[in-house]
């Protein structure tokens, strides 16, 4: 019964969000700070949730997310640049070898598919590795991808180390919001299915999961490919948002940031990841902005405040969360109506406030 209520509650929230997004799209300047936060929030929410599927729900400690975003972003850009613009984009490579272009929605799907296909290939060897070895191997894979996409010999396809541009992008918030919402909904539905339970079983105890008839290799690969699919779509959205894309930017630091978002939200909580993403970008791009510019109170100059201080404060906050609030915002719980009610009832009884929603 509560399940149904929770579902209705979520749908109402979603509808409210859509209305809000539509209103914001009309009232706020598209390049303003709030819009930047919201757009980045949508895009990185998707990537964070995809990473959580792997790290939080399947227990595979992978650090390849930036690599798969890179693949997705490039796939999208390469396939969707209008034929007429190719000569100017690929000016050093005679207009490139791809001489067709596909609509943006097909580009998004291809971005996911190519990403997933490469994940399948790389997964064959690396998924046999245990925790930290897997982490370092996937990190290495992402670095290889970064070098590969900048390789001059592949220039006719990737434009070498030059940026790709002039592909279709979006200007409204509604677009990334809808795409991210659909993708996250699909991930949630997967997690709630029999396969999602199998992933969680692998996370909790590999030996027991295998003894219950769950094929480890098969399910790990599936989780890895699905996660990469959505990371690829996220990469494509990021490419659209930036209107240009360059392999150089997809460094391991990008993966670290996404991982920290997932940890702040709570490993194993989808709503936690989404919430943490918006908080992360709101804090780093907006709320803590003031730390980056010198400030005077009367005659007294506030010390330390100058460019870069924001990131320092921010990383200290993250370290505090990692060390002292290890469960993150949501632990492995989800934000839901029944959770809220439970929380309020407990609080009413004066029970400990540490309980999660």
């Amino acid at each position, binding site marked *: 019964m509560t399940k149904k209520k929770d579902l209705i509650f979520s749908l109402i929230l979603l509808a409210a969000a859509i209305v809000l997004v539509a209103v914001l799209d009309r009232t706020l300047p598209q390049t303003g700070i709030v819009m930047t936060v919201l757009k980045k929030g949508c895009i990185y929410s998707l990537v964070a949730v995809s990473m959580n599927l792997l790290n939080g729900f399947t227990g595979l400690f992978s650090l390849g997310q930036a690599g798969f975003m890179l693949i997705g972003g490039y796939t999208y850009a390469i396939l969707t640049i209008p034929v007429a613009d190719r000569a100017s984009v690929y000016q050093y490579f005679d207009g490139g070898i791809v001489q067709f272009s596909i609509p943006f929605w097909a580009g998004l799907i291809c971005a996911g598919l190519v990403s997933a296909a490469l994940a399948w290939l790389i997964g064959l060897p690396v998924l046999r590795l245990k*925790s930290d*070895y897997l982490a*370092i191997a996937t990190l290495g894979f992402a670095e290889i991808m970064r070098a590969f996409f900048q390789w001059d010999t592949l220039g006719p396809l990737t434009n070498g180390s030059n940026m790709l541009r002039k592909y279709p992008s979006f200007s409204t918030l509604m677009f990334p919001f809808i795409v991210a919402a659909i993708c996250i909904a699909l991930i949630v539905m997967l997690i709630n299915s029999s396969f999602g339970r199998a992933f969680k079983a692998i996370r909790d105890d590999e030996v027991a999961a295998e003894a219950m008839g769950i094929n480890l290799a098969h399910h790990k690969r599936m989780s890895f490919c699905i996660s990469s699919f959505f990371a690829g779509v996220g990469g494509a959205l990021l490419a659209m948002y930036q209107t240009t894309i360059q392999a150089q930017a997809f460094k*391991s630091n990008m993966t670290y940031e996404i991982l920290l978002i997932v940890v702040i939200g709570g490993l194993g909580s989808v709503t936690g990841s989404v919430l943490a993403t918006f908080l992360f970008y709101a804090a780093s791009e907006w709320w803590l902005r003031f730390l980056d510019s010198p400030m005077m109170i009367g005659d007294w100059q506030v010390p330390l405040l100058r*460019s870069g201080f924001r990131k320092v404060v921010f*990383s200290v906050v*993250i370290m505090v969360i*990692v060390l002292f609030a290890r469960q993150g915002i949501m632990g492995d719980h989800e934000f839901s109506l029944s959770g809220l009610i439970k929380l309020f009832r407990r609080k009413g009884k004066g029970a400990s406030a540490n309980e999660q929603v």
Partner: protein
Amino acid sequence: MAVRYPEQSGAGSLHNKYLTNIRTIPGKYPDFKGLLMDFLSKNLPYFLAGVSVGGQYALIAIGYTMVYGILRLINFAHGDIFMVAGLVTIYASTVMPLYLSIPLTILVTVILGMMIERVAYKPLRNSPRMSVMISAIGVSYLLQNLALYITGGLAQVYPTIPFISNTVTIGSATTKVVTILTPILMIVLVVLLIQLINHTKIGMAMRSVSTDFETSRLMGINVNRVISMTFIIGSFLAAVGSILYFTNYPSVIPTSGGMPGLKAFVAAVFGGIGSIPGAVIGAMLIGIVENLIKGAGWTTFSDAFTFVLLIVVLLFKPTGLFGEAATDKV
């Protein structure tokens, strides 16, 4: 992170002119000896650079391998400690002479390494390994942002250290003294370290803790002291490595530690994590091959090579060259 070896690439291209065509003795097999000599003389500058960079990676790799041996933790922040050491040298040398700033660099780096362990890893000693690794990534993120703030995002020019920046000529290659000094210094330090581990009380404690953490604790070994010592040694070697490494580069930026750090880690895995000789051999191999790849004109892939090596090693011999196999009990 462009590598600057102007004198070396010049020497390389000089030899390219007349040594590119494959020589064969008429009617016989290819002249392997001749080919090898050709290859060596043509690539000597790259080979020397490789040995030198390899030695620097080795000094970093030992820090990874020792920490992993004892805590089973990939210390993601180790590369950034190396970067901070570079920055400390830069800032210290602007206010004091080098004979003071270099010891100061080493001291500050060692204290930093110890403090990171105390603050970020010690509270998580009984947590899952994933939590500690995440904490290490957080520290790495913090150090980089701190460096970005302090440097103001500008590349900081590395001071010229006399003597080791001088040039010498070896055969067909002209290079800096540091290129020759690095492997020698590295070997001396490694021999001292191995002596320490094999013949002192703290060394014995370190070996004991890396074999069995819990039992060592029960046997009355001060595990925290051993761990601190490990971080001290690791940071000390990273500081020495940073002085040798950055001498070859014009400047230090906040992300300067990332790539050497990752490569040194791969070297440690390649050699069998936990094994010091393994880390040294792995690092030398990576340094040399990477520079030979650069010599062949594939600079784009010199970084990627390291990771291909990593993935191949993990597939065929996950425990590395000298690593021990671990089994899970059901």
